[in-house]
C-alpha cells in the first residue's frame, strides 16, 4: 500500500512562491556589489580588428573591463566550440565582445557605450540550407581543431558540426517494393523559451581564490564543469549556488552569462559582480530553439504499412553548437517518430549559421521532427483513403516491435492506450458543431509523439538523506525545481520508503558545495534518475535502522519492517521503536552509544545504456526509455481574418507512474499552452542576421485568454527501472501540439501549411493560395 506516492500532495514550494518569500538570484543584494554590462556585436559575422576600452576604463565608477582575449579557451558541453566572449571574430549579432563592471548599472551601461570596436565585416551565413552548400563561407573554419565527445561526427571544412546517420534495412529496395511513394518537406522557425525569470548571475572571488557563482540555472554541476574548464580552476574552488529558478525550459540548461562575469570578478577581487539579462538579452543572447528544415520520402503499401522512410533534418544551430549537436543527434535516432518502420535512411545535420545560438528547448528536437512526421501521416492516410487514426494504429510502435534504431520496443509502450483515451476525450469521430458565423469553421485534429531522454549514457544522480534527532529529515540532491515540481515529487518518493510524512522533510538543492552530484536537470530525467538515487539512499537508511532496531528489540532483521515512522516487528506489531530514537544511533543500557547519526547515501546511473553504432546509428539499448502519447485538438478558424482559436485539447501520455498526479496534470497543461504558442504565435524573425522582434511587443506567447478547455490524462504502464514505475513526461507532453493543431486546421480548411507558426497572415495567404 502506497501512502504518499501517487497522491496529489500540495507543492512544497507553493507557499514561498505565492507569497514572494522565495528569493531569486536577482533579489540578492550584497555590500559592495558591482553591476556588469556587456558590449555586443552589431554585426552577424565580422572579424574583430581592434577593441579600444580606454575610455571605458577611464570612466569614474568603472572597476573592471574585460574582453574575450582574457580567456580564449574554447569550451562546450558536447563540442568545445565557444568562448564566453568573442575572441577573433563575432559569429552572431549580439555576441559579447567586452564587458564592464561598475558601481551602478547606469555607469556600466554608459561605459559600454564608450568601448570602441573596429570590425571587418564577413559574408553572413543566414540560412541553414545555404550554409550546407560547398561554397558557403565558414562560420568556424577551425572546426577540425575543436575537441568533442567521440560519439559526434563533425565535418571540418564545412559548416556541419554533427552528421548523425541512421541506416536501417534497405530503403532503396523498399521504395521499389512500395505501392506508393510520397515526398514532402517542412520548416519550423527559431523560437525562444521565454521563462518568466530572465537569466541572471553573480560572481565573487574571495582572497583564497574561491569563486562563488549564484546563477539562475537548471544544472549547477554542469555550470561548474563548464566554468572550471574555461577558467582552469579546481572544482572544489568553484561553488555554484542556484537558490531558485523561475522557469528554464532548456534555456538555463547550459552556461552562458556566468562566463562573462567571472573575468570581471577576478579583476575586482572580493566584490560580487552581477549581470541581469533584459528580456531583449533573453531573446537574443541566451539560447533559442533551432530552426529546422525537414524532408521526407515515404514508401507505403496500399494496406497502410509504411515500409521505408528516407528523411533529412537540417538544423540551424546558429553561431555555436556545443549543445545543438546533441539535438541533431536526438532527431536522427528519433527519425520516424513513434512508428515501427523496417527500412530507414535518416541524415540529421547540426549546421552553423550566423543566427543566435541554438540550444536545448523543451522537447529537444522532437517537437520539430514530429511537426513533419505527423503531418506526413495525415497526408498518407488521405492519399490511401485510410482513417488517419487507423493508419497510426497500423504503424505504431507496439511492445515487441522495433524502434528506429532497431531496439526492441519495451512492454511498457502504451501508445495505443493513449490513443484510445484521447479519441474518446475529444470525441474525435463526432464532427464539430459549426458556429453561426458563416466565415468561421471548426474541426478536430490528432497527432502522436514520443521522446527519450537525450543524455550521456552515464548521466548520474546522487542523493543524501540525513535523519534529524526528532525524526524529521533533510533530503539533499542537486535536482533543480525549475517549476516542474521536482522538490515535491522527490520528497514523496523519500517519504514513501522511509514512512516519514512529506511535511517532515526539507529538501536542499542548488549548491555544489553542499549537495551531491547531479548531471543536469534536463531531458525529463529527474524523477526517474534522482528518484532512483533517493530510493537507494532510503534503502541505505532502512538497512541501518533495521540493524539497530534488531539489536534493541532482539528481533531478527528479516522480521522487521519500516512503517509509520517506526521500525516494527512483522509478527508482533507492538514491538517497535520510532525512527527518531535511532536518529543519532542506538543508546545501550549501559549508556554507551552505537553506530552514530543515521545518514543515507544513494547513487544511480542507468544500466547498460550503450552507444549508437557510428556508421549505422543502430543500437539495441541506447536510451533509458521512450515516453509515448498523443493529442486531440478542436479549433476554430476565422476564414477571413486568419485568426485561430483553440477550443479544446485532450492529451494523454504513458507516464509509467504519476508520483504526483496533480503535478503531472500541471506539466501537461503547461505543455499544451507552450505548444499552442509554438503553433500559432511564436517565431523569431531574422533579417540580414538581425533579430527583428526581441520583445513581447512583437514576439507573442499565449495569454490566459488563449487557453483552451484541457482534458489531460495519463496511462501507467510501469517503467521497469523507474522509481515506483515512473518515467519522464514533462517534455514529451508538448510534442504533438503543433502537428495536432495543423491537422485540425487542415480538417477545417482543406489547406496544408508546412511551416509554423499559423499566424493570421500565413493562414490568409494559404487560404488565398487554395482559392487561386
Amino acid at each position, binding site marked *: 500500500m502506497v501512502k504518499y506516492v501517487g497522491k496529489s500532495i500540495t507543492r512544497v514550494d507553493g507557499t514561498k512562491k505565492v507569497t514572494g518569500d522565495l528569493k531569486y538570484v536577482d533579489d540578492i543584494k550584497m555590500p559592495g556589489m558591482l553591476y556588469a554590462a556587456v558590449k555586443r556585436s552589431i554585426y552577424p559575422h565580422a572579424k574583430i580588428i581592434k577593441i579600444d576600452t580606454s575610455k571605458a576604463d577611464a570612466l569614474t565608477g568603472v572597476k573592471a573591463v574585460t574582453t574575450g582575449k582574457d580567456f580564449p579557451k574554447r569550451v562546450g558541453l558536447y563540442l568545445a566550440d565557444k568562448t564566453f566572449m568573442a575572441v577573433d571574430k563575432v559569429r552572431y549579432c549580439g555576441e559579447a565582445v567586452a564587458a564592464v563592471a561598475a558601481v551602478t548599472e547606469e555607469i556600466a551601461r554608459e561605459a559600454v557605450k564608450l568601448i570602441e570596436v573596429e570590425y571587418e565585416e564577413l559574408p553572413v551565413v543566414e540560412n541553414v540550407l545555404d550554409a550546407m552548400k560547398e561554397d558557403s563561407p565558414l562560420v568556424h573554419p577551425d572546426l577540425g581543431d575543436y575537441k568533442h565527445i567521440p560519439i559526434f561526427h563533425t565535418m571540418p571544412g564545412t559548416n556541419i558540426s554533427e552528421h548523425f546517420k541512421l541506416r536501417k534495412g534497405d530503403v532503396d529496395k523498399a521504395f521499389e517494393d512500395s505501392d506508393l511513394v510520397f515526398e514532402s518537406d517542412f520548416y519550423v522557425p527559431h523560437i525562444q523559451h521565454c521563462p518568466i525569470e530572465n537569466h541572471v548571475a553573480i560572481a565573487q572571488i574571495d582572497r583564497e581564490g574561491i569563486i562563488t557563482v549564484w546563477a539562475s540555472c537548471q544544472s549547477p554541476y554542469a555550470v561548474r564543469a563548464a566554468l572550471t574548464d574555461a577558467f582552469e580552476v579546481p572544482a572544489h574552488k568553484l561553488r555554484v549556488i542556484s537558490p531558485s529558478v523561475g522557469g528554464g525550459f532548456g534555456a538555463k540548461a547550459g552556461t552562458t552569462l556566468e562566463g562573462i562575469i567571472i573575468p570581471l570578478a577576478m579583476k575586482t577581487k572580493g566584490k560580487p559582480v552581477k549581470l541581469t539579462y533584459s528580456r531583449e538579452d533573453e531573446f537574443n543572447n541566451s539560447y533559442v530553439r533551432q530552426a529546422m528544415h525537414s524532408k521526407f520520402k515515404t514508401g507505403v503499401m496500399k494496406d497502410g504499412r509504411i515500409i521505408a522512410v528516407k528523411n533529412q533534418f537540417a538544423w540551424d544551430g546558429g553561431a555555436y553548437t556545443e549543445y545543438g549537436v546533441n539535438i541533431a543527434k536526438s532527431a536522427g535516432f528519433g527519425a520516424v517518430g513513434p512508428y515501427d518502420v523496417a527500412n530507414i535512411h535518416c541524415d540529421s545535420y547540426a549546421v552553423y549559421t550566423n543566427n543566435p545560438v541554438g540550444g536545448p528547448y523543451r522537447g529537444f528536437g522532437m517537437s520539430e521532427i514530429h511537426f513533419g512526421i505527423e503531418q506526413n501521416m495525415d497526408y498518407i492516410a488521405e492519399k490511401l483513403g485510410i482513417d488517419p487514426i487507423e493508419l497510426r494504429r497500423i504503424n505504431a510502435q507496439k511492445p515487441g516491435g522495433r524502434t528506429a534504431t532497431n531496439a526492441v520496443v519495451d512492454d511498457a509502450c502504451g501508445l495505443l492506450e493513449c490513443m484510445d483515451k484521447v479519441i474518446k476525450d475529444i470525441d474525435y469521430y463526432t464532427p464539430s458543431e459549426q458556429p453561426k458565423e458563416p466565415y468561421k469553421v471548426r474541426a478536430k485534429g490528432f497527432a502522436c509523439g514520443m521522446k527519450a531522454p537525450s543524455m550521456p549514457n552515464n548521466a548520474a544522480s546522487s542523493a543524501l538523506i540525513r535523519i534529524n534527532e526528532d525524526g524529521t529529515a533533510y533530503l539533499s540532491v542537486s535536482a533543480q525545481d525549475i517549476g516542474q515540481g521536482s522538490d515535491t515529487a522527490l520528497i514523496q518518493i523519500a517519504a514513501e520508503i522511509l514512512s516519514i510524512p512529506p511535511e517532515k522533510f526539507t529538501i536542499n538543492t542548488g549548491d555544489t558545495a553542499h549537495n551531491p552530484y547531479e548531471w543536469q536537470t534536463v531531458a525529463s530525467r529527474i524523477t526517474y534518475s534522482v528518484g532512483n538515487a533517493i530510493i537507494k539512499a532510503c534503502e541505505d537508511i532502512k538497512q541501518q535502522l533495521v540493524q539497530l532496531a534488531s539489536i534493541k528489540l532482539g528481533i531478527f532483521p528479516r522480521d522487521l519492517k519500516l512503517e509509520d515512522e517506526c521500525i516494527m516487528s512483522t509478527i508482533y506489531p507492538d514491538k517497535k521503536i520510532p525512527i527518531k530514537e535511532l536518529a543519532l544511533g542506538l543508546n545501550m543500557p549501559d549508556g554507551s552509544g552505537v553506530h552514530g547519526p543515521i545518514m543515507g547515501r544513494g547513487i544511480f546511473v542507468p544500466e547498460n545504456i550503450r552507444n549508437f553504432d557510428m556508421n549505422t546509428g543502430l543500437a539495441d539499448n541506447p536510451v533509458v526509455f521512450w515516453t509515448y502519447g498523443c493529442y486531440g485538438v478542436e479549433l476554430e478558424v476565422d476564414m477571413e481574418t486568419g485568426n485561430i482559436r483553440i477550443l479544446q485539447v485532450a492529451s494523454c501520455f504513458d507516464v509509467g507512474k504519476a508520483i504526483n498526479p496533480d503535478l503531472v496534470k500541471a506539466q501537461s497543461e503547461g505543455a499544451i499552452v507552450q505548444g499552442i504558442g509554438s503553433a500559432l504565435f511564436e517565431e523569431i524573425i531574422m533579417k540580414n542576421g538581425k533579430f527583428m522582434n526581441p520583445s513581447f511587443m512583437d514576439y507573442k506567447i499565449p495569454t490566459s*485568454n488563449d487557453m483552451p478547455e484541457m482534458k489531460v490524462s495519463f496511462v501507467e504502464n510501469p517503467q521497469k527501472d523507474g522509481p515506483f514505475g515512473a518515467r519522464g513526461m514533462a517534455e514529451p507532453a508538448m510534442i504533438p501540439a503543433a502537428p495536432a493543431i495543423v491537422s485540425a486546421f487542415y480538417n477545417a480548411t482543406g489547406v496544408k501549411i508546412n511551416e509554423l507558426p499559423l499566424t493570421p497572415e500565413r493562414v*490568409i495567404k494559404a487560404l488565398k493560395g487554395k482559392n487561386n
Partner: protein
Amino acid sequence: MNKFNYFKPSTLTEASEILRKYGENAHILNGGTDLVVRIREDLLNPEAVVDIKGIEELHHINYNEKEGLTVGACVSLSDMAHNEAVVKHFPVIADSAEVVGSGQIRNLATMVGNNCNASPLADTATPLLALDANLLVYSPEGNKKISIHDFFVGVRKTSLKTGEIVIAIRVPSYTSMKGVFKKASRRKDVDLSTVCTTVVRINNDEIRIALGAVAPTPIRAKKAEGFAKGKDLTDEVVHQIAKLAVEDATPIDDVRGSKEYRLHMVEVLVRRSLEELRY
C-alpha cells in the same frame, strides 16, 4: 535608463514654462506607458521630463448634450472606458480603449497620451477621427482648439508647438450615432493593431470610416465615405464600400504584417462593421 530632470508642476502655466525652457529636450510624462519604454530603449533621451499628473484640472471627465464628451488629459483608459456617459453615448470609444495594451497598461495610459504619441496604429485615434473630435489645448498665447483632423502630422508627429499641452479631448454629441470599432491583431489580447478601424453611421445617412496602421497617420477613408453617403446598406453596397475603403490605405510591410494582409484586413473589418451597423 539615462538621467533626466523630473518636474511635477501643479499648473499648466508652470508646466508650459518648463517645456519652453527645455524646448526639444523636454518631454511630457502622462501615463508613461510609451515614454518610459522609449527612454529605456534609448529611442528618446530627454533632459527634462514634465509630469502633468499633478495638474488637477486634467483629471476630469464630463458629458453634456451641448458640448459633448470631454476627457481630461490624465483620465486613464480604464476609467474612461468604464465611465457611465462614455459607455452610454460613445460605446465605440470605450471599445477602442478596452483593447489598448493590457489591463495594467490601461490603468496608467490615457486617451490623450495615446493620441499625442501619434502612432499610426493608436487604437483610440480611429473613433476620434470618425467622430470629428477636437483637442483642447493650453497654449502660452491663449487656449485653443485643434481638430483631430489637423492634429496628426506624421509618424509620431503632431501639430502641437513647444509649450503647448493638450488639456482634454472633446467629442461632439450626436443625436443618432452608431459605431463599431474593430481590431486585427496577431493575438486576441495585449497586442498592437495590425489594422484597426472605426466605422460610424450618423442619422442613418452618413457613414464615416477611420483606419489605423495603414498610413503614416490614422486616416479617414474619404472615397468610401463619399460613395456611402445616403445609400442603403445592402449587401452589394456594403461590399463596395469595403473595397473602396482599401483605396485610401497605403500600408507598409513590417514585422506585424505585410502590406497585402493589411489591405485585406481593411476590407474585412470595414465590411464586418457595416454589416453590424445595418441592424
